[in-house]
């Protein structure tokens, strides 16, 4: 049982439906502890991405309440949402990189947004790029990199401003086995440094031997394994 004080994410009776016939999930109660690494799984199209999108306020739940780092999402106005998003690093399957910006600029964007000074930002970006094994590729453009490298740029962008929460939405979906393992190791490293990670995937091989919690989304409900 997780205590309320240590939970960084909390769902209380959360439902999301687009219409009466299209109910994504309902009555979800869930708590995720600070520093925890959880897998969110379920078949494709079941609502994993929707759950993550609700967490970073790209969508609102139909009913219920969600707390992220002690903040009730329903109390946030649109103008406050960017400040919440700075606490959350998001990684996507399709990387979502700016193709006309260099690797450095893609990663630096997260720091520019929070108004970090140029020198500090440069130092932090180079550190992070080194951490994800992309030293020497800072001036390249995303399309000049392999899929695995692009995913590492996306990871670097998500973590460069040191967010306490990382949401990964099928981050290994477009990677081969070797790149998937590399990406998983990076995620493990980030978690070891204290980040709370929700890793959404339909690939059961990624957590079949894990000791971590697995949240399975099925028929609009969460099963915890």
């Amino acid at each position: 049982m997780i205590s309320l004080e240590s939970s960084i994410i909390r769902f209380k009776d959360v439902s999301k439906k687009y219409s009466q016939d299209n109910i994504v999930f309902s009555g979800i109660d869930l708590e995720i502890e600070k520093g925890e690494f959880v897998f969110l799984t379920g078949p494709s199209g079941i609502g994993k991405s929707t759950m993550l999108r609700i967490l970073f306020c790209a969508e609102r739940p139909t009913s219920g309440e969600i707390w992220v780092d002690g903040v009730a999402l329903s109390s946030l106005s649109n103008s406050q949402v960017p400040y919440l998003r700075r606490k959350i690093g998001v990684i996507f399957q399709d990387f979502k990189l700016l193709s006309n910006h260099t690797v450095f600029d893609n990663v630096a964007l997260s720091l520019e947004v929070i108004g970090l000074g140029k020198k500090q930002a440069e130092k932090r970006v180079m550190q992070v790029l080194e951490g994800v094994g992309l030293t020497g590729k800072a001036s390249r453009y995303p399309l000049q990199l392999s899929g695995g490298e692009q995913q590492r740029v996306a990871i670097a962008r998500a973590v460069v401003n040191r967010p306490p929460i990382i949401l990964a939405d099928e981050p290994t979906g477009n990677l081969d086995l070797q790149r998937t393992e590399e990406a998983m190791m990076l995620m493990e490293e980030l978690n070891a440094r204290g980040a709370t990670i929700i890793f959404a995937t339909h690939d059961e091989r990624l957590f079949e031997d894990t000791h971590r919690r697995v949240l399975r989304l099925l028929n609009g409900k969460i099963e915890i394994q």
Partner: protein
Amino acid sequence: MILPTFYHRAFYDLRQDLCAQLITTMVVSLSILIFAFFTLLYFNLQHFVERFGTELGLTIFLTEDTPKDRILSLYQELTELPGVEKVTYISSKEAFGRLENFLKDEKEVLEGVDPEFLPPSFEIQINRAVFQLERIKQLAGEIDKWPEVSKVQFGQEWIDRLYVFSSLARIIVAIAGLLLLFTAAFVVTNTIKLTVYARQEELEIMRLVGATNIFIQGPFLVEAFLQGLLGSSLALGAVFACYRFLQGLEAKSELLRGVNICFIPWHYTVVIIASSVLLCVLGSALAMRRFLRL
């Protein structure tokens, strides 16, 4: 501190996407060029009507028995009339001299004719600022009632035609100008919308990493500001070049001499530039509105 960031990012984006930015600027420039050219035509037409109207003026013929000492007081009274800019007295002798000059080689026909047979007259020039057909008519009517005045001449037929023509031209120019302005506004805002849509993904990513609306919108607004400023300046520059070219033609051509082509008054050029900038900035802000929701 946020403004330098906007400028830095705006110039970065301009460099990254120079071709699209230049196309937008050219569209802005062409739209404003058509409007500015039309404005130039409008001002020249107005200028011509004003000048032609005032040059017509009024000629007041006096009765032959008007005492000489009354002429000075009449001159004073005419000068004091509202809207009168200049009064010139033409004595009978001066009028005779003008007739002689007009006849040139055939002035012999005037031999033996009394140099004082023509009536003395006053020529009145109307103030350009208050030039109005109604005012001229009213003035002519008032003066005609004076006992010393035999006739007032002011080319009524010409002025009537000019008045109808200028009123009609003004209405046509105003409607066409308004339509052109709407067309320019439509083209400019839609072109900017297209550039914003083309960068939809970039906007989404910026929102994702926690950028505030002002942070996202700022550089776009700076870009739109620069596009509006550059586009309208280029358009006015082109219209000015066209004006100088016509001025050159005017100096060389007998036909155009005296047309006295004028440029758009400077405060109107400021209004055109400011409107263009405002149009681009508003177009950009409107186009971005849908991307700045949750």
